[in-house]
């Protein structure tokens, strides 16, 4: 193939993605430095970092940042530990394994708005929900999940969707583990935990780090679950950064402040992305 042809074939994807990245990105950065509120179009002009200051000193900012970190951290811990446990349990031949597999990974394909509604209404509703029925049957007071522990409820919903992701990845990598090595270890009298620490965990080190990094990117941006269930409340108890920026833009119509928040979110995501790209780059052999 001639060089020109190679360039012509590659150009569309590169140019389009470049535009898709650079146009909105530079607009966000630009908006974040000007006075721009859709409700007050007469106020404008360059104001430097005032939007950032406004965003950072907003009383909702610190709670939202903490909520974001708690959400990401808890979901990561739950999904990785559960994912490891379940994928090891299922990593052996038994009847109906295919069905168990399908049941385990299905939640990952449920759209987030549906999963949020199912948990909010049919499971967590304090009057008619299934959890309330269990609590009543045991003679306990039903928990008002979304009222009393909104962030924890969202952590449960997101974990339910993403543990299957961890299971799917770990299950696949476990299949490439050296079985003979494991059998030899068993014959030498190595117990389960010693095999887990010395063989399985090292084998899964890369998949685990990939699962953590990919989930971080997605969980920093959790939106639909909050939008559908708690709307960030009560107060700001379940507001994360994504939802806070959404509020700034869609309810306060403050483009400038929302953009400053957007820049902050981009920087946060990029810190994670650098590590992820490195990890992926190692496996891409060119």
């Amino acid at each position: 193939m001639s060089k020109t042809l190679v360039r012509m074939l590659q150009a569309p994807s590169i140019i389009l993605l470049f535009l898709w990245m650079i146009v909105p990105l530079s607009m966000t950065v630009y908006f974040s430095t000007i006075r721009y509120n859709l409700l007050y179009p007469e106020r404008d002009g360059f104001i430097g970092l005032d939007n950032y200051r406004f965003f950072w000193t907003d009383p909702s900012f610190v709670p939202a940042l903490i909520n974001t970190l708690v959400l990401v951290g808890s979901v990561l811990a739950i999904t990785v530990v559960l994912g490891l446990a379940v994928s090891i349990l299922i990593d052996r031949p038994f009847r109906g394994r295919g069905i168990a597999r399908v049941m385990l990974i299905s939640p990952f394909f449920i759209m987030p708005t549906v999963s949020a509604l199912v948990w909010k209404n049919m499971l967590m509703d304090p009057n008619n929900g299934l959890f309330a029925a269990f609590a009543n049957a045991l003679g306990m007071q039903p928990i008002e999940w979304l009222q009393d522990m909104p962030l924890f409820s969202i952590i449960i919903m997101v974990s339910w969707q993403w543990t299957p992701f961890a299971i799917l990845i770990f299950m696949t990598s476990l299949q490439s583990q050296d079985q003979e090595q494991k059998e030899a270890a068993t014959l030498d009298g190595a117990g389960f935990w010693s095999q887990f620490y010395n063989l399985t965990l090292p084998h899964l080190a890369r998949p685990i780090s990939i699962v953590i990094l990919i989930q971080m990117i997605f969980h920093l941006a959790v939106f639909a679950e909050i939008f559908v269930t708690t709307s960030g409340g009560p107060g700001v108890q379940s507001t994360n950064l994504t939802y806070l920026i959404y509020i700034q833009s869609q309810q306060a119509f403050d483009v400038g402040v929302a953009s400053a928040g957007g820049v902050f979110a981009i920087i946060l995501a990029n810190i994670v992305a650098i590590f992820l790209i490195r990890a992926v780059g190692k496996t891409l052999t060119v």
Partner: protein
Amino acid sequence: MTDKQRVKLYNSIAVSFAWVAALLFFFPIFWMVLTGFKTEAQAIAIPPLLFFEPTLENYTEIQSRTNYGQFALNSIITSFGGTFIALLIAIPSAYSMAFNTGRWTKDILMWMLSTKMLPAVGVLMPIYLLSQKMGMLDSKIVLVVIYAMMNLPIVMLILFNYFREIPKEILEASRMDGTSTFNEIKDIVMPLAWGGIASTALLSIILSWNEAFWSIVLTTTEASTLTAFVASFQAPEGLFWAKVSAVSTLACAPIVVFGWLAQKQLVQGLTFGAVK
């Protein structure tokens, strides 16, 4: 107990726990499907009903009283349209990168991947205002474009990995016969990588179908997809659990089946090729 017996015992304990986990994880889906076949009264009955006479009234009512068909059609158009455009752009590019790998190929692919990590909320205002200026709020075209660009990096990367597995000799032989590049892609590369292309498409459709941020923010009625339609049931005053469940079941069923079909390729796609 002999060692063999012990191993057997451990195995059956592990299998029982695996089934417990599978049943627990699947339960909310099972409960949703079940609730879709209840009447509204049965759906909120206390204690919850496991056995009841199933009814199809929710499904008939969805068809007659809501615009379910239109939302489903919007979901199909945006997710299939976005995927089609992504493939259209990616196939020639990935083909030329795979067979003419240069010094920059890896960096280009990694850069493409990095655009995928831009958080949507970071570019919310520009996208929203640009759509508004062009009079394209609540338009399927915007969603198609967003879904195409959103999935393009992943599609590129997976296709690149698939194309590289095609032996170069096959292409060289056809070039000797004077085949044009277009025909080479159409007659040789695409048939050989057909499985890869199909599963890549499946992954892209799944991701677009379940996308909830842009569809909620950018659409109101005309272009709303199923994710946005389901989100509109969040209002606490309307407790239509049975109907919501029926809608949700319809909205999720095709994608869950797609997911089962594409399990293996999904791992590659979701980890950007890092786990195979």
